[in-house]
């Protein structure tokens, strides 16, 4: 009773999720590039990519639902499909964060340019690395790599808090720059959320491979 076709379908599902991941990653990278160079046309690219990401999310969910209904998967296959469904939702939210960033960049470009003493590209690089490593852990079914992603989240959170403190001071000291500071603060918050989604993806990889639920700092197996 080997299930060759079913396992081929699981491979197809994985491949499709990786295409989705590529789209979400590209949207984030473009949004950050738009911030870095101040180019509104790149923001348009990000906004235009959102419907395709949403369509792909629905396709993947449907494919996963079909496999659950038709194949009654067990054990690691069941955990894989559940993880794909959850990772899919996280990737869609990563795409949403990219759109949110693009909107803030657009707003920033409509305002007078000011120098704010925060390093958004550094935070973006860290959050993007988390996403990349979480996805690499998914590709390689590597829970050890996924665990490293979990550890990076604290760094992203701390960087976001530092940016918050800095920008709060900026708003107090130079209220005329409040709008710009708020835009950047929201971008930092969006990137912090990207890190959270990467954390969720890493947790799902650990659940898939080991059957262990490590969400909310649970350290024991399910």
């Amino acid at each position, binding site marked *: 009773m080997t299930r060759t076709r079913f396992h081929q379908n699981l491979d197809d599902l994985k491949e499709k999720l990786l295409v989705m991941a590529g789209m979400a990653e590209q949207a984030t990278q473009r949004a950050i590039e738009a911030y870095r160079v101040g180019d509104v046309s790149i923001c348009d690219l990000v906004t235009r990519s959102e419907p395709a990401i949403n369509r792909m999310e629905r396709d993947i969910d449907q494919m996963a639902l079909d496999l659950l209904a038709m194949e009654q998967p*067990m054990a690691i296959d069941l955990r894989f499909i559940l993880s794909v469904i959850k990772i899919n939702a996280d990737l869609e939210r990563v795409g949403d964060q990219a759109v949110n960033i693009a909107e803030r960049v657009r707003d920033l470009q409509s305002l007078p340019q000011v120098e704010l003493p925060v390093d958004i590209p550094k935070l973006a690089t860290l959050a993007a690395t988390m996403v990349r490593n979480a996805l690499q852990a998914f590709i390689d079914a590597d829970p050890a790599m996924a665990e490293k992603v979990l550890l990076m989240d604290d760094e992203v959170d701390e960087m976001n808090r530092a940016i918050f403190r800095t920008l709060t001071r900026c708003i107090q000291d130079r209220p005329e720059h409040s709008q710009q500071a708020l835009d950047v603060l929201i971008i930092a918050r969006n990137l912090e959320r990207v890190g959270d989604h990467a954390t969720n993806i890493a947790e799902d990889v650990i659940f898939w491979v080991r059957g262990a639920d490590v969400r909310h700092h649970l350290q024991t197996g399910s």
Partner: protein
Amino acid sequence: MQNLNAWYGGTHTLHDINLAIPANRATALIGPSGCGKSTFVRCLNRMHETNPIARVTGSVKLGDLDIYNDASPVEIRRRVGMVFQRPNPFPTMSIYDNVATGLRLGGITRRKRLDEIVERSLRRAALWDEVKDVWKSKSGASVSGGQQQRLCIARALAIDPEVLLMDEPASALDPISTAKIEDLIFELKADYTIVIVTHNMQQAARVAEMTGFFLNGYLVEFDATTKIFTNPTDKRTEDYITGRFG
């Protein structure tokens, strides 16, 4: 059971099985054909030894009773009932007599008493409502396959066993009859210890609290059903239930 080994002639079919089956629960046994699960259940009521070339060593206990040393096979089979893959009612007997025969052999002959027990057994097997008007007139073989299987369960329950062994009890039945048998297993486990051999893993997942996986005569893994089907410990269990071999 401790260090249970079984042979058919020179073939060693069960190897050192150590297992504690919980009372008043359903325990499912899964594994590929020829893995030893049916031999195993036949060792639990001494059916295995009805084959002259079969042999068993080790101990099987029912409570404190060592079934191979402390009681006769007939006594054990009264306390450990069995239902087989294909319904096997006595075709020339009425529904009533199918259930009453075992009772008569056990010495119960008063009509009123027999009526009471047969009705109770048919009710417990969820068959009473369907046959109450014809239970004494219709042959046991004249009802549907699903009803025949529930009749066999009623027959097994009539002699009030402690354990009910079921060897693929629904594999010859349609989905509706299968669902009725599964519902029945769910209800019966409040009063009986049930051991069910099944090739249908979804069925094991639906009805059993505990599941054992057999392979090549070895008990590879025995654990809570939820654990076996979501996160088994042994790679061989995982490969089997996910269809990577078998």
